[in-house]
């Protein structure tokens, strides 16, 4: 089943990516702000040069011509270049993407590693002391925005205690173990902030999903088989309760990326999110377009992953 299914799903993803790119392009074109705005106020640039530049980049053409031009260029691998730094957009993105992926990936792993055991244990004994403590922390966790917890951590661990660096840098000197150690040290705070925030809301989903499954008939059947409560919980309850959670994690990825933009900004993580923010502040349209498009591709990709995992976890779903 899965190869045909994957192929078909990938083919379906193509038109949706076209649609997304069209919407993004139109919105950006209609948005106020002009990449050459700075040149207007710059007395050293004569108006005719400015007009010539606009004509050269085709900025005065109708939107649809500009879109088609952008689309064909992009399909050929030419994503344009930044109006600010003159660096190619794809180079910029490729420089930044690994850092973002590492931080988001690590924080998601952290979130899942906290949420699943805590959620399952809380649901196994609902309204117990552990459950109430877990619920309280989960509530606090997802009520506090990342920009608050981020600043709090910086204040405590960097400013007061001076244990961790509060600026994330890709220019760490050295190599091998010392390099890795520094990299891990500077990743601790951003990963913790993002991971705990994600984990807190995930705990509640895991808990309610487990509570739903634990009272089902087949769990009673499993108990009647005398295989022990731990096996009942892990093999029969958790296995089934995780099916909706997997979908949720994948579908939450857009929100995670959104949250990462803020976190990257706080910790000065040179990731794709901070690239997007600085590009927006500078009206750097090609970069904004490129980054948002990469975000869209990632979201579509994670939806596909969710579907595949769903079919793999639940045999009742036929992937056709």
């Amino acid at each position, binding site marked *: 089943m899965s190869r045909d299914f994957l192929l078909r799903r990938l083919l379906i993803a193509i038109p949706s990516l076209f649609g997304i790119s069209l919407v993004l392009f139109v919105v950006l074109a209609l948005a106020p702000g002009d990449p050459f705005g700075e040149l207007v106020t710059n007395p050293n640039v004569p108006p005719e040069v400015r007009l010539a530049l606009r004509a050269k980049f085709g900025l005065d053409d109708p939107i649809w011509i500009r879109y088609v031009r952008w689309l064909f260029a992009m399909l050929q691998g030419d994503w344009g270049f930044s109006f600010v730094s003159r660096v190619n957009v794809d180079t910029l993105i490729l420089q930044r993407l690994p850092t973002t992926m590492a931080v988001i990936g690590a924080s998601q792993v952290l979130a899942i590693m906290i949420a699943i055991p805590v959620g399952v244990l809380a649901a196994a004994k609902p309204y117990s002391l552990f459950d109430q403590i877990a619920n309280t922390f989960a509530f606090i966790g997802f009520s506090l925005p990342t920009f608050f917890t981020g600043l709090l951590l910086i204040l405590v661990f960097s400013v007061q205690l001076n244990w961790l660096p509060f600026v994330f840098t890709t220019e760490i000197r050295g190599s091998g173990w010392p390099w890795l150690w520094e990299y891990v040290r500077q990743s601790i705070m951003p990963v913790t902030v993002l991971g705990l925030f994600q984990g807190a809301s995930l705990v509640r989903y895991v808990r309610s999903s487990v509570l739903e499954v634990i009272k089902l008939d087949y769990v009673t059947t499993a*108990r009647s088989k005398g295989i*022990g409560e731990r096996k009942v919980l892990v093999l029969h309850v958790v296995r089934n309760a995780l099916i909706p959670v997997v979908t949720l994690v994948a579908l939450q990825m857009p929100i995670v990326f959104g949250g990462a933009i803020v976190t990257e900004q706080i910790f000065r993580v040179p990731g794709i999110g901070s690239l997007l923010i600085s590009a927006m502040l500078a009206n750097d349209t090609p970069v904004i377009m490129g980054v948002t498009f990469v975000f869209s591709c990632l979201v579509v990709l994670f939806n596909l992953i969710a579907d595949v995992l769903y079919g793999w976890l639940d045999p009742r779903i036929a992937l056709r």
Partner: protein
Amino acid sequence: MADPLLDIRDLKTWFRTEDGLVRAVDGVSMSIGAGETLAVVGESGCGKTVTARSVLKLIDMPPGQFAGGQILWRGRDLIPLPPAEMDKIRAREIAMVFQEPMTSLNPVYPVGQQIAESLRTHEGLSRKAALDEAVAMLRLVQISNPERRVHDYPHQFSGGMRQRVMIALALACKPKLLIADEPTTALDVTIQAQILELLVEMKERFGMAIMLITHAMGVVAETAQRVVVMYAGKVVEEATVEDLFAHPRHPYTQGLIRSIPRVDASATVRRRLEQIPGTVPNLLNPPEGCRFAARCGFAVETCRKVEPPLREVAPGHKAACVL
């Protein structure tokens, strides 16, 4: 009966709810000998299922609790048994088939794996040996092409077939007692007969005892040797099948028997099917005296005041009625 396999004595299983204490099972006694089929009958909500689940300790605690009594399995009381000891009795000595075949199997595992699970735990079989045994069990419960079907998932089976799988699963470790909790209620009539026939056949083959929970008197007549009639958390009558159908003593039992649809000669006289008026009383605060008094056509003043004890009215025949 010399030495009963299972001897339930004065069992009280209560549930603490927001509205108060529900005495779902309130002083129930019954026993099952080796190889015997005991039917437990009564309307919905009279405590049959709670009694059955109490035996395997499948009641969620809280809200449930054992408020008293004993469940003696071959002389050993199961109630104080720690979970690890209880797990050794489940499936291996006492197994259970549930009411809802559609939801009683885990949807994410092939049926063979689910049958093999208890075999691997209790008999230490390898994955391969346990799966072979699962195939043999599926063949025994007359599922065609078991070598292939063993890898199928529950949703690929019909309701009747799933109940066969459930029976195979329950019997895999050759238990000495099978508790069948309304095994045919969720199935259509033709399938019901097949499943009952299969249960009887399996009983003869393995020589196990069956505790058959049902609300259908017809099912009782076909399969059981002895019957316990329950009403509102109590046993109201206990007798052999022949005795019970020939001389029902308790008005509730009489009502149950009269409400069996008949297709013989008397049915040619157009007559409305009889029913017992009223509903089962609320177990939150059961009425004083006989719990059936409010629905009983013979009730007298004392019935509403004094609860009649279960007493022997004839050899091997007990009833809880003053009449």
